[in-house]
């Protein structure tokens, strides 16, 4: 029994599955993930990857243009959805038919103002610059794999 469990422990749907992973189809792996309530997703935004679960807060160091507080974001680029033992992985991204991941913009703020000192020849001593980077705060409101 243990050997059987070990065989199905690591499964992936990627075309180039890592060594030790059993390569299976999406139909085979989705019931295994749906049985587990505790899942994560790897979402991609502006070419950066974020590993999130439901209820997480994302604090991004920039301001989205045209976004207001309370707006709902639909995540489209997702490369992995997984539980403790199994990973559903696309070749680059998973097809949008398989999942539903949404986030709510809860605040548009900024980090506290910080002072930076530059010592350069052209400054003849030093100059001080002040920085206050804008932030976008997003809460993951929905994260589910469609049956």
């Amino acid at each position, binding site marked *: 029994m243990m050997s059987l469990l070990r065989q199905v422990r690591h499964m992936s749907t990627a075309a180039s599955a890592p*060594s030790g992973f059993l390569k299976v189809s999406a139909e085979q792996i989705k019931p295994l993930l749906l049985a587990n309530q505790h899942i994560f997703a790897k979402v991609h935004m502006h070419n950066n990857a974020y590993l999130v679960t*439901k209820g997480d807060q994302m604090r991004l160091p920039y301001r989205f243009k045209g976004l207001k507080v309370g707006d709902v974001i639909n995540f489209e680029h997702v490369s992995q959805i997984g539980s403790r033992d199994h990973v559903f992985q696309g070749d680059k991204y998973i097809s949008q038919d398989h999942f539903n991941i949404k986030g709510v913009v809860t605040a548009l703020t900024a980090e*506290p103002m910080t002072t930076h000192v530059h010592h350069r020849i052209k400054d003849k001593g030093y100059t001080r610059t002040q920085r206050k980077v804008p932030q976008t705060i997003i809460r993951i409101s929905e994260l589910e794999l469609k049956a």
Partner: protein
Amino acid sequence: MSARPAYQTVARNLNGVGNFVLQCKKVTFRYCNWGGSSDGMRQYLDKNLQKIAAQNPEIEFVAVKDIGHPFIRGEFVNGAEKTICCKNKHPRFINGKFEMLKSSDGAPRKQMKSPVESINESVRGIWSPYHTDPKARHKI
């Protein structure tokens, strides 16, 4: 995965999961009818107060006439207050500060250390050499 203490497993309020509540609940504009430093604030309230009150039904708007310099004060659901002085300021500045208060969550500002903040337990847990497939282990 070790078990968490009971006080950590109690459900917490996560704004946005299930329902979203705007965190700014009240905005107060103070102005003076006589002083010159309230000139911009008087223009702003004359033109825009009715409009922004109609556009934002979740927020309570109060205009207070009092002696002294003008300010905007925002009150938030978590009990925090943010007050901004608007003395000798243009209506455009006051509008920007109102938008800032409206889109803020009332929490103290902090620098981004990691982009994702989570209170959930780790999905994959801590890696253990005794529970991996022997075929997947690194062979020396």
